[in-house]
């Protein structure tokens, strides 16, 4: 079956435009397969990004028909009839065609102290209990592939440059629940500041587009609860 792929094109010094390509699709042809096919057989200069091509690295995240998706795991056949539009993620600087600069993504993670920091007083083999509630909660939120689709879908990151965005806040939850981590107090300082947890409107766009089925919205709500009980003198 022949499908039309409507692809966003831009390179420095040029105006943004879209270009249509006709691609032959079978039942399992994905958006990534179609992009690769276009680049190899029709337009060698099309720039797009992918690495693992099986849904582990998140590098191929794009906006397909208005919604963030991983190109490698999205079948054209599951997108309904009509042309399939492909454009780069929102809220990131464009580099070329479908490729964006994800440096702000890393910067947000850094600002929210998104790296584990071992406790200085940690006992050897310290761990989060095997059947503990904290472990169950962390498990629900930890399988983030860093694709930044949630950030693209978030309406707040564009409005407030200091807002960490869903991915960084989701990671923060897994760290605030982790008794092995030594930076939790400092991290609360960031999370409970003016431009973090308090800013989320709870629209849930992030949760809707997460390809791993994570729920950053729920993580943010959990963090707020934990933060509140901390402010009220709990152990948080």
């Amino acid at each position, binding site marked *: 079956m022949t499908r039309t792929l409507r692809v966003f094109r831009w390179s420095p010094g040029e105006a943004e435009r879209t270009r249509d390509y006709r691609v032959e699709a*079978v*039942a*399992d*042809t*994905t958006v*990534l*397969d179609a992009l*690769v096919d276009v*680049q*190899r*057989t029709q337009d*060698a*200069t*099309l*720039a*797009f*990004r*992918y*690495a*693992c091509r*099986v*849904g*582990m*690295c*998140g*590098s191929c995240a794009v906006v397909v028909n208005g919604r963030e998706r991983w190109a*490698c*795991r999205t*079948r054209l056949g599951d997108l309904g009839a009509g042309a399939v539009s492909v454009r780069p993620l929102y809220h990131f600087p464009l*580099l*070329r065609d479908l*490729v964006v600069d994800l440096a702000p993504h890393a910067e947000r*993670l*850094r600002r929210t102290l*998104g*790296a*584990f920091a*071992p406790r200085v007083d*940690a006992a*050897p*083999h310290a*761990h*989060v*209990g*095997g*059947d503990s509630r904290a*472990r169950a909660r*962390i*498990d629900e939120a*930890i*399988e*983030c*592939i*860093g694709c930044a689709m949630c950030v693209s879908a978030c309406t707040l990151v564009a409005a407030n440059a200091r807002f960490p965005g869903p991915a960084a806040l989701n990671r923060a939850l*897994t*760290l605030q629940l*982790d008794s*092995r*981590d030594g930076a939790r107090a400092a991290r609360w300082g960031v999370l409970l500041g003016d431009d973090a947890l308090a800013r989320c409107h709870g629209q849930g766009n992030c949760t809707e587009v997460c390809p791993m*089925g994570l729920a950053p919205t729920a993580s943010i709500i959990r963090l707020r609860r934990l933060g509140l009980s901390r402010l009220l003198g709990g152990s948080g």
Partner: protein
Amino acid sequence: MIETLETDVLVLGAGGAGLCAALHAADASPRLAVTVVVKGLLGRAGCTRMVQGGYNAVLTPPDSLEAHLGDTLAGGGWINDQELAWTLVREAPGRVLELEARYGCFFDRRPDGRIHQKPFAGQTHDRTVHKGDLTGIEIMNRLAEQVLVRGNVRALEECRAVELARDADGRAAGALVLDVRTGRFLAVRARATLLATGGGPTMYKVIACSADKAADGIALAYRAGLPLRDMEMIQFHPTGLVVPGSLMTGALLEEGLRGAGGRLLNGRGERFMAHYDPARLERSTRDLVARASFTEITQGRGTPNGGVWIDVSHLGAELVERSFRGMVKRCRDFGRDLARAPVEVAPTTHFMMGGVVVDPACRTALEGLFAAGEDSGGVHGANRLGGNGVAESTVFGGIAGDVMAEFVAGRAAPRPEAAALEAAAGALAAPLGRPRGGADLYALWRELREVMWDRAGLVRDGAGLAAAAREVERLEALGAAVGVEGGPAFNVAWQDWLNFRSQTTAARLIITSALTRRESRGAHYRQDFRAPDPGPLYSVRVRAGDGAPAVWTEPVALTRARPPATAAPVAMETGD
């Protein structure tokens, strides 16, 4: 004039090996400047990311280091470098704990709090540490976060090494690096350089590994004149998804499915492993299971799309969905229900056991150059056990980081030979100026992948390998003359041209080595030499010679263990 960057430690590659090396070197002294060259995005390039099942480490009795060593050597057809294998098993437990305690990895735990370890094929104990069935994502996310917050580590994202640099005395002096985004070359001058680009047998038709790999490190080492070993040993994983018409083809369904009791059925519904390894059935080693599947398929007992079935539905849908969430979703996105029905799978090219010759301190034959992970050879011998791959990359990456930090202390920065780098950059950029026309890069690439799959794949013979050698030489020559459209910045075709160059170089080494090993052992199966050679064990070595690879063999030093006299031949095969 090529821009120059100076660093103390240069790490080429950013998977488990590269990032562990960077962190270890950076933490050895805050004064050391560490630069990591990442082919893609930090934490998201390469194959450590793709590890599903997990990480082999001996943590509690009755398992023992000796048992892990024995399994690794038996699985490896006894041609492993035993000192490397021993280093792996000895250091793996400490590295697992380091990944947890220092970098924050969140491995699954049992209700009693102990680290959960699951059974994996070819192993005598439940040894495989994991995070669900997406262990690599957990490890890479945590390592990448640590790199992000280290002030003395700089990650050059979407950059790739295209040539190793040497000084006037021939010592390693860093590398010529290409920035994919800008298309500009960068000379990185370094006091110690690590090759950790992760091998990657992407010159085969069906692949499991990350598609960004191209055996770059193997090609760099070969061009630098380094000896490589056991390049004929390419691992084919038995359970790659069959997804007609999609790049998803070859994507792994993890080994834990077989470990948990998954069954393999041929197109007639027969549990065919009973004919090939009646004792271990589906829990036999990867090489045997992959070849058995391949045999079923090529002999006409396959499924409609040329695979076999993996069936885990008898384990109960609820258990499968809970224990193998990532696998279930991977299948579901393509309309297959792993928890409730058989799914079509076929052998897929997974891993290069061979690579650069190293010692247990990751030193290579070139002073100042180190290698770790899939770019190096010898740890796994003729076949790698599931769960030993990420163990290797993190164990040896960490060692390399420690060793390099010590190596650079007090050592003057070498001066790369600028003229050589300028010349290399000129040659590598040549296709950009050329008119397109003549051969099509992607047609050549397709041919390469077909040839390697058909003639240097799961079942090989002398005539086929000789034909493959001629074919690859022809494709290499045609590829060298290809022209690429567009400018240098983020030019996918140009990057693929560079990939093709590395892939053909590595393909020649695979073929030459496979011709030299006139026996069947581990992953290497020769139809014209179906049994293992009863003579002394040897390793096949190859390095750049006069215009063609020079190849020789070296005896295996049995420094830690000897194969049992009655050992079942590793390449045991019943069907044809």
